[in-house]
């Protein structure tokens, strides 16, 4: 079996990649996708921890990641709607041009 630390390390790496992508990229769609990457990274960690013998065959981590998937779906739906709406107003999908609330 693979030690759980491997999974956690992979999860941390994916999370970092997603976070960096979110911080660097100005394309809102890509930023949204980066968020999905981060959520997936978290899921990996949760499911891996769920396999520890201390959890005694409980499904806590898996159930938790199930709800994360549900929340991710919701956030993507709303996020993409906002992208469309932003595009209609500003004719752009660049996050730094969406500054209607500036000052």
């Amino acid at each position: 079996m693979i030690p759980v630390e491997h999974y956690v390390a992979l999860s941390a790496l994916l999370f970092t990649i997603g976070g960096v992508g979110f911080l660097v990229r100005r394309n809102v769609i890509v930023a949204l996708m980066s968020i999905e990457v981060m959520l997936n990274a978290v899921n990996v960690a949760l499911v891996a921890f769920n396999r520890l013998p201390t959890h005694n065959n409980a499904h806590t981590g898996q159930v938790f990641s199930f709800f994360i998937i549900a929340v991710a779906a919701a956030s993507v739906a709303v996020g993409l709607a906002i992208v469309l709406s932003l595009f209609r107003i500003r004719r752009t999908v660049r996050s730094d041009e969406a500054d209607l609330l500036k000052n």
Partner: protein
Amino acid sequence: MKPFLDLFSQNDFSLIAVVLLMPLLGAFVNGVFGRRLGKQAVRMMALSAVGVSFAAAIATFVALNSAIDATHAAHGEAAHSKLAWLAWEWMRVSGPNGSKIAIDLRFSVDALSGVMMLVVTGVGFLIHVYASEYMIADKGYWRFFCYLNLFIFSMLVLILGDSLPVLFVGWEGVGLCSYLLIGFWYGKLPNAAAGKKAFIANRIGDFGLIVAMFLLVVYCGALDWDGIQRHANDLVATSDRPGPINLWPIGGGKFEDYVIAGIRVPLHNLQPDKPWTITAATAVGLMLFLGATGKSAQIPLYVWLPDAMAGPTPVSALIHAATMVTAGIYLICRLSFVFVLSPAAMIVVAFTGAATALLAATIAVVQNDIKKVLAYSTVSQLGFMVLGVGVGAFTAGFFHVFTHAFFKACLFLGAGSVIHAMHARIHDEARSQDMRNMGGMKKYMPLTYGTFLASTLCIIGFPGTSGFFSKDEILARVLIETPTGVKLANAAAPWQWPSWAPWVLWMMGVAAATLTAFYMMRLVFQTFWGDFRGWTIGRPSQVAKSEHESDHGHAEDEDAEDGDHEHHDDLSQPGPPPHESPRPMTIPLLILAAAAIVAGIFNPAAIKLVVSTFSFLPLEHWLDPVFKDAARGITMAEHHTAHTRELISTFGAFTAFAAGSGLAYWVYVKEKGKPAREMMLKVPRLYRLALEKWRVDEAYDKTVVAGVDALADTAASVDQGIIDFILARLTALIVAATGTILRVFQNGVVHVYAAVMVVGVLALGWFFVQPHADFTVVEQNGDYTLQAGPGPGYEFRWYPDATKDPQTKDFSVADNLKVHVADGKSQTVKLEVKNAFGRVGSKAFTITRPATPTSAAGAVQIREQ
């Protein structure tokens, strides 16, 4: 009928719901849909609502009668029984000594409220019929009937409520309806002002009622009638905890000298030898009576009632004569057992009533507006009722409520009929109500004249009419009954009336009765006798040009919406004579006049003087169980004296009637009003003063209203200077300045926000990466238990003695440690914590135990190293 009434049990008599809710339904339908329904539908709805309510009230009354008969048969004597219906449980409040007082929305009918219920629904129905014709031309027809039905509902809640809070709901409801109806034609400023005045005057009374409720909760621990009655004696008991109420020093404190900066303030002079106290019964009685003065228009709050005549005449008849204004007397009757406990409160009630009767009568003598005269006459008659209940003659006072409802409603409706006729000729509110423009109306409107004369004879006490019996009864009772209070073992002896009080009250009453006879006959003579003086009113020769034009325009407006009035735009020609009112207006008049004449048979006590064996007093027997508890606080004169005094009183009352009406006949018929004019010229200032209602309103304006205005001005300047300026503007300025600074950071670039967030996340992350060793120490007899705080993935290693090896070599999940420290010793304990990231933190403590072995729980001193 019996099988139908058997459907309802005595304690769940849901027929009361029909009585109550039909008018509410009418109000709802008329108020919500009335505008679209059209006048005929509104009329039908309003009349059927009150009509059904009246029918259900009759059925309820029949059931009540049989219930009382049944109790009578069971107990052998007349006992207090009632029909009750619980709508729902309203609330529970904390009472004295931790008890809970259940306040239920419960309604009940007993002998007293049963009669009131019949009067309200019956007279109310007749007035609805009358109003449905009187108001037919008004644009706000639906609104009017919505209010009127709502009024009937509120009045029924007031009457049928089984506890003070429920009564209070109705009390406020009728106040609201009264306000809405006085200001019904709210487009005119005086009407709106009159409505406001009524509302505010009533509020002052409501304050008294609320205070009385609080006192009753504290002293009696109950607010329903039965509960108050059970615990009424607690109001005067000295042994109970609340005890009497301290007036001075307020709240029962003690004044002692106060030294400030070496100066002695001699406050002890303010301390009386014995604290001034009144019993709670007196306080409750006076507060309830304050409520009654508001609603029943007694001194000092009577000023709203004459102004209330700004409303439509049927409203004046229903609300401001027959029903609502008697609510105060009803309240006193209802809580008679509280009032009789305090002769001091009773004397205030009695003298206020007598003074109101007299004062209002003097004003009524000189008024020219027909409705104003009737309004002051109402105030005066209410004074009579209050006088009656004030001397403990609750039956007599209530009987006057009963008879007054009929004849005063009839008088007002008759006046409305006259105004209706006058209005056909004179399109001016004030002049069409001025008696100087009337005269000779008996020729044109015989039905109105007949009914008006009948009810006038009632009110002035023509022998044999209902008014004679009821008013005579009040005057007689003033002389033969005196409230002496109740002597209780655990209470101080009640204060007693001075012996002159009944005679003074009686003379005031007789004087008021004389004036009543005079001004009422003056009203009849000026309005209905002689020749019609209205021919020349409103003609061009009498009216200035501009006024003429405005009248002209008004007439056209009226014509547009009101076809059946015979208006003549050509004012140069004499108009048609006044005409009799249509049938829906005259039939209620006839019924009310008939009722007014014969209502005396319910309590013709005066016949006893002639036929000593006479004992047909249905109302007295009917109400006897209600007032039985109150009767213990009333002392009747000894039988022989009583008979003599009754004779004196009846003679006085008859003299008052004869003198007053005879004088009026001499002045206004024989001499055609000449003596009155001479009198007017002889004492012009007195005349003006009376005409201006003794300038009471002006005095109130100068004192109370001016005081409130000054307070309001002060408050306004505080509001503008401190609240608005310092608090509001300054705060806004600070907020705006801070906002201007902070706005710079809101540059709208998401990446900057995200970068800043990363910094925060880093800080949090650092906090979690660091291990935080911490524990709490609990001591018991030298055994110390150390409990480590939790954290992510924490494992612990304990050093019971920091200088030696750890307890276990490896880190473990054991998060507590027990050590024993002997007396007077000290020991250093150390904890090492390793978290999920493998980082280790530590914390050490020195535990020192004091050397005194006697102290079981030695103080623990913890010193961090």
